[in-house]
């Protein structure tokens, strides 16, 4: 439903997005990841028709955003970065305005507003001017505005930024409930969010895609993927490390002191599953363990490994 080909945007000497191509199908929730300034927001602004790309094209359900802008925009629900809204309007006035712009009138418009207020829990603040609302409510007003017309394509720039854990949970629930019927792109800094709601994660860096796969596939790229961690008393550590190293599948063992205990992490040689070997070894040797678990992999570590620091990026962009 969303097709992006070779999208490019330059701001003066800086190339913000460099030939980005993606396609998102119905039912996908694409998590758009990347360091600050990687080009996430710029890409979203081009997909939604706010910025004009310098090269490349984007289309929504077959409508090109540059040549068929209004038709394409009618199919998009967009939550811009920071969830901007008219501060002097009340929540009800603002949503009524959006409903009118989206082509609803009379009872239909009222029903749409009521439904979306229900979904985003905005009932208690309906008659308050938006500028008096807390950050969490403001974000939900932005969300309500984006989903009011039940769009087939939903693009959200950091939908849970600034929300508390409860609010995050309910927004994620809302997104998941809509996911089957829509093509959704969300950008986020929160790696746990990708794990929680995304069916696909795309990491971009310096304006281009550097990783594209399911969250599980990304996790598999982690050094920690299938590693095994054990916590035990310091005195036992030497013997255990020696035994672990003797196991066929173990490539390396790292240790970390925590109080008077030691946390050992055994990294596997590529492809081998360690947890079974290690747990059998532990029961055979009768080790006294406080913890024993297999690592699924660490997204933040994958993220750091394939993206660059902002200073390096700024330098590269200007080169």
């Amino acid at each position, binding site marked *: 439903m969303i097709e992006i080909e070779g999208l490019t945007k330059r*701001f003066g000497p800086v190339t913000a997005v460099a030939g980005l191509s993606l396609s998102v199908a119905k039912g996908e929730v694409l998590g758009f990841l990347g360091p600050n300034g990687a080009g996430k927001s710029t890409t979203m*602004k081009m997909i*939604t*028709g*706010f*910025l*004009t790309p310098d090269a490349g094209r984007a289309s929504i359900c077959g409508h090109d955003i540059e040549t068929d*802008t*209004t*038709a394409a*925009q*009618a199919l*998009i629900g*967009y939550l*811009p*970065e*920071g969830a*901007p*809204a*008219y*501060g*002097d*309007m009340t929540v009800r*006035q603002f949503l009524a*305005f*959006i409903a*009118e*712009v*989206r*082509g609803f009138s009379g009872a239909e418009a009222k029903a749409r507003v009521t439904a979306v207020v229900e979904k985003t829990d905005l009932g208690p603040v309906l008659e308050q*001017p938006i500028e008096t609302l807390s950050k969490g409510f403001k974000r939900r007003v932005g969300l309500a*505005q984006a989903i009011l017309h039940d769009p087939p394509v939903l693009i959200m720039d950091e939908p849970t930024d600034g929300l508390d854990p409860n609010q995050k949970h309910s927004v994620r629930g809302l997104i998941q409930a809509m996911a089957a019927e829509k093509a959704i792109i969300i950008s986020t800094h929160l790696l746990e969010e990708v794990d929680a709601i995304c069916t696909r994660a795309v990491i971009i860096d310096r304006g281009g895609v550097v990783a594209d796969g399911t969250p599980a596939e990304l996790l598999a790229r982690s050094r920690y993927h299938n590693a095994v961690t054990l916590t035990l008393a310091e005195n036992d550590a030497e013997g255990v490390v020696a035994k672990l190293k003797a196991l066929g599948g173990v490539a390396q063992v790292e240790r970390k002191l925590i109080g008077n205990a030691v946390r050992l992490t055994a990294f596997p040689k590529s492809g081998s599953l360690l947890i079974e070997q290690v747990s059998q070894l532990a029961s055979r040797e009768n080790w006294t363990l406080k913890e024993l678990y297999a690592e699924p992999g660490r997204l933040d570590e994958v993220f750091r490994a394939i993206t660059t620091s902002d200073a390096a990026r700024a330098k590269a962009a200007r080169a």
Partner: protein
Amino acid sequence: MNAVMNKVVTNAKYVLPIFKREFASYFATPLAYVFIVIFLLTMGAFTFYVGHFYENGIADLSVFFAYHPWLYLFLVPAISMRLWADERRTGTMELLLTLPIPLWATVLGKYLAAWAFTGIALALTFPIWLTVNYLGEPDNGVIFASYIGSFLVAGGYLAIGACISASTSNQVIAFVVSVAVCFLFTVSGAPLVLDVFQAWAPMALTDAVASLSVVTHFNAITQGVLDLRDIVFFLSLIALFLAANIVVVDLKKGG
């Protein structure tokens, strides 16, 4: 004919929500009331104290209308300065321009709302019209034409101000630059400007500059002659700056 009607209806559908929201926003804050009160007070002050409305002993509103272009010079940019600069500053520009509305309709809707608002302020000067009718027998045709002319002057300045507001996120800059540009359009018929051109420029250029003067065209209308040429001047001025407004918004979306 039907096709044309359909087109008008479709396009009105785009402009109307923008117009309504923008128009209501004036009254959501004290802005509307402050502006209207100041507008009426200064109009009154200039008419009675500077223009000596009573002492003249003539039952017409020429002294009242004579000051309009000069008052608008400061009051209209105060309205237009926030038109786009505020959207840019608060980030609502991104929301507005990603809604399924063509850019021209957004520009037109916002502009018409501002113009309608100044129209209301102008209409609220009606007590002076009642006064002059009570005191004597003025030519109400001339007064009607003058009101139309005054409304057109405000419209011209608003279009200039809207275009300039679109180029910045700073309302103060928008105000100052708008006043300066409107000033040029106000005085271009005065000797102050024309003398500069007369010294060296061909007659045609001097005439062209003089014909850009808002005051010249406004004065022609306040004589009681609603000449098509004067109306075309104002409408072209408005159309030109609204077209520029569309281009400026489109070019400056990114930053």
